[in-house]
């Protein structure tokens, strides 16, 4: 068994993208701004193009940092527009990310016609080819995407473990976090920089669209069936990891896009979670003969 075996490489890389995305995505979904994942994932094209223009590199740490910076730039611009109170935040998101994405496309079209920087790959990726681009480390051949994503998963996991209570309070009640002196704004930007960095690490392998579905769908599914933050995150990561092999075998069986089937598998889990929740609520309120609680927006 080798890490560059196509099946092994595809399965491990898919699971790594899924787990990293779901880990960071859990906090995003709970904050109610999943659309930021979309904004960030598109805005990173701008950072990738600029980092290439400045350094000539199309992958590696420089690209990840460039992307992280452009993701942060996107979030900063969105917050700036929202704060003017002339624009709602969804409109601000809709303004900022197409602007940065198209700026990235224009830069690539003008300066990088002959270089391997392709906006179609950024959007869709091709997980089927991750085993072709390899590195050798300590005598072992390993696909580049697998290595980058392992590093990002480690960094993201350390970040979440170290700042868990701040992340949690900033998500549940950002005002109290600020009142207690925990600097939720800083944590928010750090979280979104890591999300941007992870997105660029993922875009080679799976493309932006599959990455967004890993960020949003597994946490949304886990949210329906868990009642604790830690179990929500664990279940979201598990669902994401399981979607990789399920999607892969369905894709092979139906001879369709592997990345697409992995994304579709996360949707299957969401449907299952939704049905389970409906059933549980139904039994719960019938057994206690209670009215469902009113929406908590009182």
């Amino acid at each position, binding site marked *: 068994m080798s890490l560059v075996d196509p099946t092994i490489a595809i399965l491990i890389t898919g699971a790594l993208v899924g787990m990293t995305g779901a880990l960071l995505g859990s906090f995003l979904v*709970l904050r109610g701004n999943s659309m930021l994942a979309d904004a960030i994932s598109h805005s990173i094209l701008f950072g990738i193009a600029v980092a290439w223009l400045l350094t000539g590199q199309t992958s590696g740490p420089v690209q990840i940092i460039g992307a992280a910076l452009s993701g942060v730039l996107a979030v900063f611009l969105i917050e700036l527009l929202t704060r003017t109170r002339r624009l709602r935040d969804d409109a601000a998101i809709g303004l900022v990310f197409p602007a940065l994405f198209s700026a990235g496309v224009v830069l690539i079209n003008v300066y990088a016609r002959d270089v391997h920087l392709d906006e179609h790959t950024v959007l869709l990726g091709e997980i089927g080819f991750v085993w072709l681009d390899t590195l050798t480390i300590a005598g072992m051949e390993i696909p580049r995407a697998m290595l980058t994503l392992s590093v990002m998963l480690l960094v993201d996991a350390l970040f979440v473990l170290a*700042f868990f209570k701040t992340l949690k309070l900033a998500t*549940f*009640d950002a*005002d109290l976090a600020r009142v*207690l002196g925990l600097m939720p704004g800083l944590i928010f930007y750090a979280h979104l920089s890591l999300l941007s960095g992870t997105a660029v690490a993922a875009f080679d392998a799976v493309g932006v669209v599959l990455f967004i579905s890993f960020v949003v769908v597994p946490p949304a599914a886990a949210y329906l069936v868990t009642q604790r933050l830690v179990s929500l995150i664990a279940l979201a990561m598990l669902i994401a990891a399981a979607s990789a092999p399920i999607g892969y075998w369905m894709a092979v069986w139906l001879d369709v896009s592997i990345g697409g089937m992995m994304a579709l598998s996360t949707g299957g889990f969401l449907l299952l979670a939704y049905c389970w929740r409906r059933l549980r609520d139904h039994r719960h309120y019938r057994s206690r003969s209670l009215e469902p609680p009113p929406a908590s927006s009182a």
Partner: protein
Amino acid sequence: MSHSPSDPDVHHDPSIALHLEDLTVSYGERPALWDIDLDVPAGVMAGIIGPNGAGKSTLIKAILGLVPVSAGHIRLFGEPYGQQRRRVGYVPQRSSVDWEFPTTAVDVVTMGLYGQLSWWRWPGRGERDQALRALEQVSMESLADRQISELSGGQQQRVFIARALVQNPDILLLDEPMAGVDATTERQIIDLLRRLRDDGRTVIVVHHDLQTVQRYFDWLAFLNVRIIAAGALEHVYTANNLRRAYGGQVALLDEAQNRPNAPSDA
């Protein structure tokens, strides 16, 4: 209550729990609070009352540094908020958070202690015990491990109060704690706040129900973007001040005046 804002000693007088001077806060071009001077003495149960849009919540948020202040300054026990963080308990409006968040009552109360733990430390057994004791103070210990979305409005409000109590604060700021709670819970909350006051703590409550003002508070501030009047209840709770604070909202005013022990013009 006789301190004049220009008295230089007031800035560092620790017997004044809350000192606001020339405080102005604006959203865009419209001022939400205009040139506020206010001194709340320590150990009172103070009500902040005024019509909708008077800036009551904004006042609390400005004290806590949650909204940018355009002018003026704020002192808690003679010091800026940043140096008094641990002495302040904040109970935001219940509707300010998502109660579907995956967590339990005791866990929400534990959040009140997050500021006292070093940044990498997870709360442990000790923090949980402290949180359970705070829940006992609001008679909620039996529901400690209940998912927060399964609690009633009054229970959620008591969890929020316990979250402020767990910090053992010297001053408590509550933003409409009686909004949307049943009569029993309201009585429990007011009894608890009175006990805290009798304990020597300062309790400041944003309140909107004119009918209960006289029974609940011993100190009042009428707010309508500016401070209309502030001081001990018996000095400032007058029909004239009510009229000046509530302006054209005659119906509200009449309702308050038709109560049996409504204030008459002093």
